[in-house]
């Protein structure tokens, strides 16, 4: 039984008052999620009791730190059903995952005249690294269009996937429209023309079960801080034969097996891609976050968010002048982006903030998508494991209040 009140007790920050007498209503988890106490404690415990560098010491603390650093990797591998632990690469965030693939795989495999396919839903993290690569190599970027409801124009895939397409990189869940895309179908389509498929799971992994083998994707990236873990760490998953043939991305210590004055031999996977002293505390924290989410059960998390999102969708739909971006029903993740006629999203966010309600306003690092929708900005409320129906009622009431401040009829 999913007990949201008990879950709320796990998050110390939810007891915060943002202004005197004004409790926090945190509806900005899609930007960054809050952390349960177990995650905070796991990182404190590491720093208080067994901090040391990994992979090199013979002393007890280094051994403990290495064990925990690698144990977290094993938990993550299980969490996304990776065939082998070595396929889980620690990176800084999902953004770094895209950069790693663009630099290491892209520079070796993309040439003049090749095409990289993205979609109109993408976050800047899944656009700009490819733009830089395409410019350098004389390749072309194409964008699979969306329909007006924020879903992908799947039936037009044939026009956009050609024998020139070398990579199809797309989001599994949009951070603006909320659209959940049919990952396996898109991956299969990419493979059918001989292209690789990379999945942006930054908005999927925190909210739903992820199975990289069922998806059959070649690469997949996500960030820890959106899924109860700390900032500063993310994960890149890749198919083994690809990771093995890719040159290193960053270079330095820990990523080498042997160095002479004349050259180096790279380390084995996954350390080949982890140059320098890594993010040890962050890996420990992410491991604790995975434990936490697993204890709730990702199916239960998804079901809870589904109920909250349906409730919010209905409540917000009744507000005069509202335009909700993205699809209805089962194709939507736990967030709602919207505009209100006569009220700029920034003004909405400011008025809501005074009521303790944290939402995001702006283009959410997806400017091309906003241009496609004919909008300069949207307001976004996003939901997570601890979101309650009462909080949605508060959101709705505050939006009515915002309209009255602006004297909208």
């Amino acid at each position: 039984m999913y007990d949201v009140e008990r879950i709320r007790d796990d998050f110390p920050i939810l007891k915060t008052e943002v202004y005197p007498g004004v409790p926090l209503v945190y509806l900005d988890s899609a930007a960054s999620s809050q952390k349960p106490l177990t995650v905070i404690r796991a990182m404190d415990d590491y720093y208080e009791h067994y901090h040391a560098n990994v992979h090199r010491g013979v002393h007890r603390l280094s051994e403990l730190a290495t064990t925990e650093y690698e144990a977290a990797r094993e938990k993550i591998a299980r969490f996304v059903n990776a065939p082998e632990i070595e396929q889980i690469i620690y990176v800084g965030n999902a953004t770094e995952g895209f950069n790693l693939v663009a630099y290491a795989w892209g520079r070796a495999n993309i040439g003049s005249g090749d095409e990289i396919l993205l979609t109109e839903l993408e976050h800047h993290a899944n656009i700009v690294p490819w733009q830089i690569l395409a410019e350098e190599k004389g390749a072309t970027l194409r964008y699979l269009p969306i329909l007006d409801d924020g879903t992908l124009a799947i039936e037009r895939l044939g026009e956009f996937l050609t024998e020139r397409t070398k990579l199809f990189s797309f989001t599994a869940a949009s951070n603006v429209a909320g659209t959940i895309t049919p990952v396996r179908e898109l991956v299969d389509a990419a493979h059918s023309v001989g292209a690789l498929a990379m999945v942006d799971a930054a908005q999927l992994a925190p909210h739903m079960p992820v199975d990289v083998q069922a998806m059959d994707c070649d690469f997949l990236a996500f960030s820890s801080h959106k899924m109860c873990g700390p900032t500063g760490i993310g994960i890149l998953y890749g198919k083994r034969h690809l990771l093995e043939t890719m040159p290193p991305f960053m270079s330095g210590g820990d990523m080498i097996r042997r160095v002479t004055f004349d050259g180096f031999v790279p380390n084995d996977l996954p350390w080949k891609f982890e140059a320098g002293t890594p993010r040890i505390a962050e890996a420990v924290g992410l491991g604790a976050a995975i434990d936490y989410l697993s204890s709730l059960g990702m199916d239960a998390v998804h079901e809870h968010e589904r109920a909250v999102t349906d409730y919010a969708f209905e409540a917000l739909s009744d507000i005069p002048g509202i335009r909700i971006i993205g699809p209805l029903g089962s194709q939507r993740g736990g967030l709602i982006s919207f505009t209100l006629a006569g009220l700029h999203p920034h003004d909405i966010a400011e008025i809501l903030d005074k009521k303790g309600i944290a939402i995001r306003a702006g283009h959410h690092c997806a400017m091309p998508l906003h241009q496609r929708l004919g909008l300069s900005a949207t307001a976004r409320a996003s939901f997570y494991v601890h979101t309650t129906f009462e909080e949605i009622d508060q959101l709705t009431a505050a939006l009515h209040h915002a309209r009255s401040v602006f004297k909208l009829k």
Partner: protein
Amino acid sequence: MDANIYREQIIDLYENPLNYGEIENPDFTYEEDNPLCGDVIRIDVRLDDQNRVAEVAWRGDGCAISQASASLLTEEIKGKTLDEVKAFPSEKLLELIGVPLSMARVKCALLSLKVLKAGAYGIPDPGTMRTHE
């Protein structure tokens, strides 16, 4: 936090902006956006033979603070010399807006002044208006 940044005047200016529009053959024109929130403002200025602001108009899209600020600023600079426009202090504009602003919103408030000064200093206009209601 009862300090209400949406005082009557700001809302009024948002709904009924001053000097909204465009000028044909302006002496300078400039447009810029605030990429964080998508606020965008363009200002056109025509000078008289003594280099004073004879006519000023602005267009834009954005939050109440950025748009009210453009009305207040354009109203304030009428008749001022080009040098006075170049030296217009940002504190003065914040004073005209007259409500306490967080750091993020100060950027919204000062976008109009940034645009005006870029134009006054003769920086080539980078673009065309992208967003209109």
